[in-house]
């Protein structure tokens, strides 16, 4: 799976779709995509079903997005987090912190 971060704008909702192995070499790209999304829309969803690996820098990008959104009263959710992502979130005791949904539609609602 190729390392990729794609952004789609849909009205007041931004979908950031991440795939591949998220690590220090490119996690800043994901961080920027999330923060850019929050700067232009009221809600951001981060789709993570195709993420086969994530390190603490990737988790940090998600945390920063979540805190940023919460501070401004914006919506932020993780969508379809892969088992790898869920495992690392549990290790970081963050699995009950993020709003997590199974579909993009649920994130938009």
């Amino acid at each position: 799976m190729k390392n990729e971060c794609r952004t789609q704008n849909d009205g007041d909702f931004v979908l950031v779709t991440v795939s591949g192995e998220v690590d220090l070499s490119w996690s800043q790209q994901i961080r920027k995509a999330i923060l850019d999304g929050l700067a232009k829309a009221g809600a951001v969803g981060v789709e993570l079903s195709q993420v086969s690996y994530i390190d603490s820098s990737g988790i940090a990008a998600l945390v920063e997005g979540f805190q940023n959104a919460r501070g401004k009263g914006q919506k932020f959710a993780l969508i379809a987090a892969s088992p790898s992502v869920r495992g690392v979130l549990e290790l970081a005791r963050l699995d009950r912190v993020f709003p997590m949904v199974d579909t993009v539609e649920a994130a938009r609602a």
Partner: protein
Amino acid sequence: MAGRALLKLTIPAKAEALKSLRDALNEALDRTGAEAGVRERLVLAVHEAACNVIRHAYPDGADGSIRLSLTRQRGNLRFWLRDFAPPVDPKAIKPRDLSECRPGGLGINFIDDTMDSWRLRPVKHHRGNVLTMRKRLRGTGHQ
């Protein structure tokens, strides 16, 4: 501790080299018979240790390298990660409180949670630091 060498690897202390470290380590751990979930945790812990070297040990993106070796003696794995950066203060390196929700600072927690023990110390009489991490594998038999 002596033991059978399963992996010896040197990578540049650059984030782009981390994938090669993970792949080589994953392959070496696969040969131990460790189950997938355990392998993933071990690879993550060692990866995080290498990330800490890249981010904190070599100042301002200075060129440097990271050496990793993995040995096994019966069911005991020993990971040895060496850098050639200025000495660290081991007392300053500790897991943080995970009840605080904030980005960053998770690497040492991942190492601490995964490994049975770990120790970071400057190398005596030479430049650099060594992080030694140990993990006992369960149920894989002796080799």
